[in-house]
């Protein structure tokens, strides 16, 4: 594996960052969570952020933190599906298909929440689990997977995830 600066990756995959922050913001709005500040893309660390109020509602915390996972994954699949068919099945290549694959994979690469998001879920889940909250129970393996995934970003786990959703999944769907 070779190292590419995070800022360069962020620039190349900027649509994914915008959609990631959009998803956080979207779920904040859907769950009536006040947003103090939001940055959808910048060249820096982090490349984007949404600063919002805390909430005692665990479902809200879970949805706001996991929002990008659902939105980015779904968009990645929706964007790559039309591009997959002509290239993979009919050997028909056109620039639009490659543009869509870049767009879809870029968005898929930023689907997995950050450790900050995982921490937010974890901090509440460990309290809520005492009350038998089912979502809190389910969230523990998810949090573990997020932490592991973020470690594996060093070996391009984000790219593999984007490719898996954008290229491998359509192949499995269409055979």
């Amino acid at each position, binding site marked *: 594996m070779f190292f590419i600066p995070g800022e360069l990756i962020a620039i190349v995959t900027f*649509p994914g960052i*915008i*959609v990631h922050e*959009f998803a956080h*913001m979207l779920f904040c*709005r859907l769950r*009536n969570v*006040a*947003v*103090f500040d*939001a940055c*959808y893309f910048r060249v820096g660390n982090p490349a984007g952020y949404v600063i919002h*109020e*805390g909430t005692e509602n665990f479902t809200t915390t879970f949805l706001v933190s996991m929002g990008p996972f659902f939105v980015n994954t779904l*968009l990645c699949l*929706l*964007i790559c599906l*039309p*591009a997959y*068919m*002509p290239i993979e*099945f*009919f*050997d*028909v290549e056109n620039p*639009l*298909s490659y*543009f*869509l694959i870049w*767009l879809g994979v870029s968005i898929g690469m930023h689907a997995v929440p950050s450790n900050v998001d995982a921490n937010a879920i974890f901090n509440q889940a460990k309290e809520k689990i005492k009350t038998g909250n089912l979502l809190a129970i389910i969230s523990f393996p998810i949090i573990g997977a997020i932490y592991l995934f973020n470690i594996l970003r060093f070996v391009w786990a984000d790219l593999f995830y984007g490719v898996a959703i954008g290229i491998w999944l359509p192949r499995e769907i*269409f055979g």
Partner: protein
Amino acid sequence: MKYIDCENCDTKANPFNTTIGIAGKVYCDNCIEASFPDKKVPEGVTIEKHIDSTVCAFCSLDNGEVDLDKIAEYPVCANCAVNIKNRAFPLWVKGFLAFIAAVVLFSVIWNWRFYQGYQYVIQTKESIEAGNIPLTAELFAKAAAKVPEQKDLKTLYHYYNGLNLLIFDKAKEAYSELSFCSVLPLDYNVEYYKTLAQRNMYYNDKDYLRFLNTSLQMWYGDTTNAEANAFVASAYSCLYVTEGHDSLKTKAEQYLTKAWALDATPEAAKYYRMVEYRLYAKQIVTMEEFTKKYPNGWVKPL
């Protein structure tokens, strides 16, 4: 606005917002700069950012001595509260998302023909398994019309249409269709079917010598094939009827005997009986004519 005295330098009436509590002691702006120039405090020391509950944390509006409502731990004026609660997506983000949605929609519409082509190709798998050659040809024609860039689809249409025409005894048209299929892999037996079409063309043209030659050409391809042996027998039987040499009849009977030995199923036997009938009646009949004449079959009289 609230005010507080600095406990480090005794400066009076500092705006509460501008001070920080460090280890329980109030520091003003200047003292923080002076005491902690690198903005680092020793580990374990508590730091408390003072928030004035009468000053809006976002627009710095001074509400006098009246505390503002809070969002999280921050005092917020009425205007900022509305803005925070209803924070809208920036126009460019909306535009970007709209662009993505438009691209996806355009792409789905633009690529829809590929999905249709794919559906037709998937259906051909079933029609091939069911042995439905006319339907297979039709489906490949539809798929090729949807994805003209993929030349293989057109070739496969020609192939199955060729086979279909062969079945309906349109040898010339079948040969013409199969001539487009030379790029197909060997297991499609294109050359075999082309020879078969040629053979049938010669039969239809009553050119029985060429009919025999093409039948022999197929037989050389697989001498243990019952059909190939029966085809040669058929060709010899036609030549026998037109030329009348007994050696031709003998040849026909020899190949027919081999065919019987290789495949004696009722379907194959029907064809052999037709050849036997030609030799017996010295009359060239097609399979169709023979079946019409003897719907319950025919056996050579002893």
